[in-house]
């Protein structure tokens, strides 16, 4: 399994760059992944990232965007404004959780 080093932490990733062990993540790692993806994180970004992590920890699966919008107060339009290059993938990547299975 390939590994990558973010913020001095070596983390295992899959072929698409998603962390395969979400427990190795910390906020600095998330920040470094975001920088690699060309994202400048604001509080709104973190609201989504934090929810993706807590929901994954609770339910064992990455939430879809509709679920994120319903639970964070960040609307669907804003989700796309914050992660214009594909929020379904990018939020999961920065949050260190698997690619969501939900298509919605």
């Amino acid at each position, binding site marked *: 399994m390939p590994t990558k080093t973010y913020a001095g932490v070596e983390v295992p990733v899959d072929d698409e*760059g998603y962390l395969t062990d979400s427990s190795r993540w910390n906020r600095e790692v998330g920040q470094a992944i975001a920088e690699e993806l060309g994202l400048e994180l604001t509080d709104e970004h973190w609201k989504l990232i934090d929810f993706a992590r807590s929901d994954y920890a609770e339910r064992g699966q990455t939430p879809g965007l509709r679920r994120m919008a319903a639970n964070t107060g960040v609307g*669907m339009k804003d989700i*796309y404004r914050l992660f214009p290059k*594909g*929020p*379904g*993938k990018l939020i999961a990547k920065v949050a260190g959780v698997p690619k969501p299975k939900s*298509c919605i």
Partner: protein
Amino acid sequence: MSENSLKRISIICSKGSLDMAYPGLILANAARMSGIEAMLFFTFWGLDIVNEKKVDDLHLSVLGNPSMPIPAMIAGLPGVEHLATAQMKKEMEKLDIPSVREMLSILDDAGAELYACQLAMDMFKLERSDLVPQVREVISAMDFFDKTGDAQIIFI
């Protein structure tokens, strides 16, 4: 880091039954979630999906559908289609799949482009005001190709 080589998809929705509506809408949404541009072109019976009067009342196609676990003789009886549709809607609600109307609104928020076919509109005597607000424009088949650009086309 794998990048999508697919940049844009163009989906033609030509059928108005519930089971033909969702695939196009969900594919388009998954594309937007992945950072792929998506446009939808509603034509012929597909116009029902964006028709204000019909969008909340799309039905399953029961008759002539070989995947339906209902014998054709029974499928044709009055009320069976309603029953099957209600049953499927209930199942979808359990899985938290949004209604068609909500899917259209999600797609619009996600930046997917929705277009309706002019010729089909004329055929069914529909006006722009008969369509849901998420439809950006009523366009011709030639406009469709202009807007599709070099996108992959999917016909449903």
